[in-house]
Protein backbone atom coordinates (compact mmCIF):
# COMPACT_ATOMS: atom_id res chain seq x y z
CA UNK A 1 0.00 0.00 0.00
CA UNK A 2 2.58 2.39 1.12
CA UNK A 3 4.84 1.86 -1.73
CA UNK A 4 1.95 2.18 -4.11
CA UNK A 5 0.95 5.49 -2.59
CA UNK A 6 4.45 6.69 -2.76
CA UNK A 7 4.62 5.72 -6.35
CA UNK A 8 1.37 7.42 -7.12
CA UNK A 9 2.60 10.61 -5.61
CA UNK A 10 5.72 10.30 -7.54
CA UNK A 11 3.63 9.90 -10.63
CA UNK A 12 1.53 12.94 -9.85
CA UNK A 13 4.36 15.27 -9.17
CA UNK A 14 7.14 14.09 -11.29
CA UNK A 15 10.60 15.41 -10.87
CA UNK A 16 10.23 18.44 -8.71
CA UNK A 17 12.81 20.95 -9.51
CA UNK A 18 15.18 21.41 -6.65
CA UNK A 19 14.97 25.05 -5.68
CA UNK A 20 17.83 26.77 -4.03
CA UNK A 21 15.91 28.10 -1.05
CA UNK A 22 17.59 29.89 1.79
CA UNK A 23 15.99 28.81 5.04
CA UNK A 24 16.13 31.24 7.90
CA UNK A 25 14.45 30.81 11.28
CA UNK A 26 12.07 33.55 12.24
CA UNK A 27 13.51 34.37 15.61
CA UNK A 28 11.95 37.77 16.19
CA UNK A 29 8.92 36.59 18.14
CA UNK A 30 11.01 34.21 20.20
CA UNK A 31 13.40 36.97 21.13
CA UNK A 32 10.49 39.17 22.11
CA UNK A 33 9.25 36.48 24.42
CA UNK A 34 12.68 35.88 25.89
CA UNK A 35 13.16 39.57 26.54
CA UNK A 36 9.90 39.80 28.44
CA UNK A 37 10.77 36.68 30.44
CA UNK A 38 14.21 38.02 31.18
CA UNK A 39 12.90 41.33 32.47
CA UNK A 40 10.35 39.58 34.66
CA UNK A 41 12.91 37.19 36.09
CA UNK A 42 15.46 39.90 36.71
CA UNK A 43 12.81 41.86 38.56
CA UNK A 44 12.05 38.97 40.87
CA UNK A 45 15.72 38.12 41.31
CA UNK A 46 17.05 38.57 44.80
CA UNK A 47 20.72 38.24 45.56
CA UNK A 48 20.09 37.11 49.12
CA UNK A 49 18.77 33.74 48.22
CA UNK A 50 16.29 31.93 50.34
CA UNK A 51 17.19 31.43 53.94
CA UNK A 52 13.92 29.84 54.81
CA UNK A 53 12.60 26.76 53.15
CA UNK A 54 9.02 25.85 53.76
CA UNK A 55 7.81 22.29 53.64
CA UNK A 56 5.13 21.33 51.18
CA UNK A 57 2.21 20.57 53.47
CA UNK A 58 2.53 23.88 55.26
CA UNK A 59 0.33 26.77 54.24
CA UNK A 60 1.72 29.87 55.85
CA UNK A 61 -0.63 32.74 56.68
CA UNK A 62 -0.33 35.93 54.67
CA UNK A 63 0.77 39.17 56.19
CA UNK A 64 1.86 42.66 55.25
CA UNK A 65 4.98 42.33 57.41
CA UNK A 66 8.11 43.59 55.75
CA UNK A 67 10.88 42.20 57.93
CA UNK A 68 12.99 39.68 56.07
CA UNK A 69 13.77 36.34 57.65
CA UNK A 70 16.92 35.70 59.64
CA UNK A 71 18.76 32.43 59.94
CA UNK A 72 17.51 30.60 63.01
CA UNK A 73 16.34 27.18 64.00
CA UNK A 74 12.85 26.45 62.85
CA UNK A 75 9.83 24.92 64.46
CA UNK A 76 7.23 23.92 61.93
CA UNK A 77 3.69 23.21 63.03
CA UNK A 78 1.61 21.32 60.51
CA UNK A 79 -1.81 19.90 61.12
CA UNK A 80 -0.32 16.58 62.18
CA UNK A 81 3.17 17.12 63.55
CA UNK A 82 5.33 19.56 65.39
CA UNK A 83 8.76 19.52 63.75
CA UNK A 84 11.99 20.96 65.01
CA UNK A 85 14.45 21.62 62.16
CA UNK A 86 12.66 19.08 60.03
CA UNK A 87 12.53 16.31 62.62
CA UNK A 88 9.25 15.20 64.09
CA UNK A 89 9.24 15.88 67.80
CA UNK A 90 5.61 15.58 68.81
CA UNK A 91 2.32 14.64 67.14
CA UNK A 92 -0.31 17.36 67.28
CA UNK A 93 -3.02 15.08 68.73
CA UNK A 94 -0.84 14.35 71.68
CA UNK A 95 0.09 17.98 72.20
CA UNK A 96 -3.53 19.06 72.10
CA UNK A 97 -4.53 16.52 74.70
CA UNK A 98 -1.79 17.61 77.10
CA UNK A 99 -3.09 19.41 80.15
CA UNK A 100 -0.02 21.52 80.71
CA UNK A 101 1.54 24.04 78.38
CA UNK A 102 4.97 22.43 78.20
CA UNK A 103 5.55 20.03 75.30
CA UNK A 104 8.10 17.43 76.51
CA UNK A 105 9.35 16.25 73.07
CA UNK A 106 9.88 19.75 71.82
CA UNK A 107 11.48 20.84 75.08
CA UNK A 108 14.07 18.05 74.82
CA UNK A 109 14.91 19.01 71.26
CA UNK A 110 15.21 22.68 72.11
CA UNK A 111 17.38 21.93 75.13
CA UNK A 112 19.78 19.96 72.91
CA UNK A 113 19.88 22.80 70.41
CA UNK A 114 20.55 25.26 73.16
CA UNK A 115 23.43 23.24 74.62
CA UNK A 116 24.96 22.87 71.16
CA UNK A 117 24.76 26.56 70.36
CA UNK A 118 26.05 27.51 73.80
CA UNK A 119 29.03 25.19 73.40
CA UNK A 120 29.73 26.72 70.01
CA UNK A 121 29.35 30.14 71.59
CA UNK A 122 32.02 29.35 74.16
CA UNK A 123 34.46 28.37 71.44
CA UNK A 124 33.91 31.37 69.23
CA UNK A 125 32.47 34.60 70.46
CA UNK A 126 30.52 35.45 67.36
CA UNK A 127 28.14 32.57 67.12
CA UNK A 128 26.53 32.17 70.47
CA UNK A 129 23.10 31.37 71.74
CA UNK A 130 20.85 34.17 70.56
CA UNK A 131 17.54 32.91 71.79
CA UNK A 132 16.10 33.33 68.33
CA UNK A 133 13.74 30.80 66.87
CA UNK A 134 11.38 30.97 63.95
CA UNK A 135 7.99 29.34 63.97
CA UNK A 136 6.32 28.26 60.75
CA UNK A 137 2.74 27.59 61.57
CA UNK A 138 0.00 26.31 59.32
CA UNK A 139 -2.89 28.72 58.74
CA UNK A 140 -5.40 26.44 60.36
CA UNK A 141 -3.73 25.61 63.66
CA UNK A 142 -5.60 26.81 66.74
CA UNK A 143 -4.09 29.32 69.14
CA UNK A 144 -3.94 26.74 71.88
CA UNK A 145 -1.32 24.80 69.94
CA UNK A 146 0.70 27.89 69.11
CA UNK A 147 0.54 28.97 72.72
CA UNK A 148 1.95 25.65 73.89
CA UNK A 149 4.80 25.82 71.40
CA UNK A 150 5.59 29.42 72.29
CA UNK A 151 5.44 28.67 75.99
CA UNK A 152 7.86 25.78 75.57
CA UNK A 153 10.27 28.01 73.63
CA UNK A 154 10.06 30.67 76.29
CA UNK A 155 10.71 28.21 79.09
CA UNK A 156 13.85 26.85 77.43
CA UNK A 157 15.14 30.35 76.79
CA UNK A 158 14.18 31.06 73.21
CA UNK A 159 12.54 34.42 73.72
CA UNK A 160 12.88 35.99 70.30
CA UNK A 161 10.16 34.36 68.31
CA UNK A 162 9.89 35.00 64.59
CA UNK A 163 6.59 34.00 63.07
CA UNK A 164 7.17 33.11 59.44
CA UNK A 165 4.53 34.35 57.01
CA UNK A 166 4.20 34.83 53.27
CA UNK A 167 4.49 38.39 52.14
CA UNK A 168 1.70 40.07 50.24
CA UNK A 169 2.35 43.32 48.44
Amino acid at each position, binding site marked *: MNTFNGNAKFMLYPRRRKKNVQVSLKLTSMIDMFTIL*LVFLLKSFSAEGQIVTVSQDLRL*PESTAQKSPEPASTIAITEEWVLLDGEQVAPVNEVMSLNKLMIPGLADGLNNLKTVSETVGQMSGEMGFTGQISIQGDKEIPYQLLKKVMFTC*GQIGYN*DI*LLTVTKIE
Partner: protein
Amino acid sequence: MNLKNAMNRTRSQDDVDVNIIPVMNIFLLLIPFLLLTAAFVKIAVLEISLPSLGRGAAAQEEIKQKNLILVILSIKEKGFQVKSPGFKFDPLNKIGTQYNYNELKNQLKQIKTRHGHAEDIIISPESKVKYDIIIKTMDQCRDAGFPNVSLAG
Protein backbone atom coordinates in the same frame (compact mmCIF):
# COMPACT_ATOMS: atom_id res chain seq x y z
CA MET B 1 21.74 30.59 -12.69
CA ASN B 2 23.64 30.77 -9.48
CA LEU B 3 25.54 33.62 -10.83
CA LYS B 4 22.35 35.43 -11.67
CA ASN B 5 21.04 34.93 -8.17
CA ALA B 6 24.20 36.14 -6.64
CA MET B 7 24.26 39.20 -8.79
CA ASN B 8 20.64 39.96 -7.95
CA ARG B 9 21.33 39.67 -4.29
CA THR B 10 24.22 42.01 -4.26
CA ARG B 11 22.27 44.58 -6.10
CA SER B 12 18.94 44.58 -4.26
CA GLN B 13 19.84 43.61 -0.69
CA ASP B 14 21.55 46.56 0.84
CA ASP B 15 19.97 46.19 4.29
CA VAL B 16 22.02 44.07 6.64
CA ASP B 17 20.60 41.70 9.20
CA VAL B 18 21.80 42.11 12.77
CA ASN B 19 23.56 39.05 14.00
CA ILE B 20 21.30 37.94 16.81
CA ILE B 21 22.87 34.58 17.51
CA PRO B 22 25.10 35.81 20.39
CA VAL B 23 22.11 37.52 21.97
CA MET B 24 20.17 34.30 21.78
CA ASN B 25 23.04 32.48 23.42
CA ILE B 26 23.05 34.89 26.32
CA PHE B 27 19.30 34.59 26.68
CA LEU B 28 19.39 30.84 26.62
CA LEU B 29 21.92 30.80 29.43
CA LEU B 30 20.42 33.56 31.53
CA ILE B 31 16.85 32.34 31.50
CA PRO B 32 17.41 28.89 33.01
CA PHE B 33 19.72 30.41 35.59
CA LEU B 34 17.21 33.04 36.64
CA LEU B 35 14.36 30.57 36.60
CA LEU B 36 16.25 28.37 39.02
CA THR B 37 17.06 31.17 41.42
CA ALA B 38 13.68 32.88 41.21
CA ALA B 39 11.78 32.96 44.47
CA PHE B 40 8.11 32.92 43.70
CA VAL B 41 6.95 32.91 47.29
CA LYS B 42 8.23 35.84 49.25
CA ILE B 43 8.65 35.19 52.92
CA ALA B 44 8.66 37.65 55.78
CA VAL B 45 8.72 37.34 59.54
CA LEU B 46 6.76 38.84 62.40
CA GLU B 47 8.78 39.35 65.53
CA ILE B 48 7.40 38.62 68.94
CA SER B 49 9.46 38.79 72.10
CA LEU B 50 8.52 36.92 75.19
CA PRO B 51 9.50 38.56 78.45
CA SER B 52 12.60 36.77 79.71
CA LEU B 53 13.74 36.81 83.30
CA GLY B 54 16.42 39.40 82.75
CA ARG B 55 14.52 41.59 80.41
CA GLY B 56 11.20 41.31 82.18
CA ALA B 57 12.22 43.51 85.08
CA ALA B 58 13.68 46.10 82.75
CA ALA B 59 10.56 46.07 80.65
CA GLN B 60 8.38 46.63 83.68
CA GLU B 61 10.44 49.62 84.72
CA GLU B 62 10.03 50.94 81.26
CA ILE B 63 6.28 50.56 81.56
CA LYS B 64 6.29 52.63 84.73
CA GLN B 65 8.42 55.32 83.14
CA LYS B 66 6.47 55.62 79.94
CA ASN B 67 3.13 55.60 81.72
CA LEU B 68 1.94 53.11 79.22
CA ILE B 69 -1.56 52.93 77.86
CA LEU B 70 -2.88 49.45 78.28
CA VAL B 71 -4.76 48.18 75.26
CA ILE B 72 -6.11 44.68 75.31
CA LEU B 73 -7.67 43.13 72.28
CA SER B 74 -9.37 39.81 72.77
CA ILE B 75 -10.19 37.65 69.80
CA LYS B 76 -13.14 35.45 70.51
CA GLU B 77 -14.86 33.00 68.27
CA LYS B 78 -17.73 35.47 68.03
CA GLY B 79 -15.63 38.51 67.27
CA PHE B 80 -13.31 41.15 68.69
CA GLN B 81 -13.44 43.07 71.93
CA VAL B 82 -11.11 46.02 72.54
CA LYS B 83 -10.53 47.16 76.08
CA SER B 84 -8.58 50.13 77.27
CA PRO B 85 -8.87 52.33 80.36
CA GLY B 86 -10.97 55.39 79.60
CA PHE B 87 -12.65 53.84 76.60
CA LYS B 88 -15.78 51.86 76.19
CA PHE B 89 -16.02 49.89 72.99
CA ASP B 90 -18.83 47.72 71.81
CA PRO B 91 -17.87 44.14 71.05
CA LEU B 92 -17.32 43.65 67.34
CA ASN B 93 -19.20 40.61 66.26
CA LYS B 94 -18.38 38.71 63.13
CA ILE B 95 -20.26 39.62 59.98
CA GLY B 96 -21.28 36.23 58.67
CA THR B 97 -18.08 34.25 58.93
CA GLN B 98 -15.78 37.25 58.54
CA TYR B 99 -14.20 39.14 61.37
CA ASN B 100 -14.89 42.86 61.26
CA TYR B 101 -11.38 44.17 60.65
CA ASN B 102 -12.44 47.62 59.44
CA GLU B 103 -14.33 48.50 62.59
CA LEU B 104 -11.47 47.14 64.69
CA LYS B 105 -9.12 49.50 62.92
CA ASN B 106 -11.47 52.41 63.61
CA GLN B 107 -11.56 51.61 67.31
CA LEU B 108 -7.79 51.31 67.50
CA LYS B 109 -7.42 54.61 65.70
CA GLN B 110 -9.67 56.26 68.27
CA ILE B 111 -7.24 55.18 70.98
CA LYS B 112 -4.36 56.34 68.85
CA THR B 113 -5.82 59.81 68.37
CA ARG B 114 -6.26 60.32 72.09
CA HIS B 115 -2.95 58.77 73.13
CA GLY B 116 -0.50 59.45 70.34
CA HIS B 117 2.40 57.71 72.04
CA ALA B 118 0.58 54.43 72.64
CA GLU B 119 2.39 51.73 70.74
CA ASP B 120 1.81 48.55 72.68
CA ILE B 121 -1.11 46.24 72.37
CA ILE B 122 -1.83 42.92 73.95
CA ILE B 123 -3.70 40.40 71.87
CA SER B 124 -5.45 37.70 73.76
CA PRO B 125 -7.05 35.09 71.51
CA GLU B 126 -9.32 32.31 72.62
CA SER B 127 -7.79 28.88 72.37
CA LYS B 128 -9.71 27.82 69.27
CA VAL B 129 -8.97 30.91 67.20
CA LYS B 130 -7.03 30.08 64.04
CA TYR B 131 -3.43 31.21 63.58
CA ASP B 132 -4.35 32.93 60.31
CA ILE B 133 -6.80 35.21 62.11
CA ILE B 134 -4.24 36.10 64.75
CA ILE B 135 -1.75 37.12 62.07
CA LYS B 136 -4.39 39.15 60.25
CA THR B 137 -5.34 40.90 63.47
CA MET B 138 -1.70 41.68 64.17
CA ASP B 139 -1.47 43.23 60.70
CA GLN B 140 -4.45 45.44 61.48
CA CYS B 141 -2.87 46.52 64.75
CA ARG B 142 0.32 47.42 62.96
CA ASP B 143 -1.63 49.41 60.37
CA ALA B 144 -3.46 51.28 63.11
CA GLY B 145 -0.18 52.33 64.70
CA PHE B 146 0.49 49.73 67.35
CA PRO B 147 3.73 48.08 66.25
CA ASN B 148 4.54 46.40 69.56
CA VAL B 149 2.23 43.46 69.59
CA SER B 150 2.36 40.88 72.33
CA LEU B 151 0.36 37.74 72.69
CA ALA B 152 -1.31 36.66 75.86
CA GLY B 153 -3.61 33.85 76.59
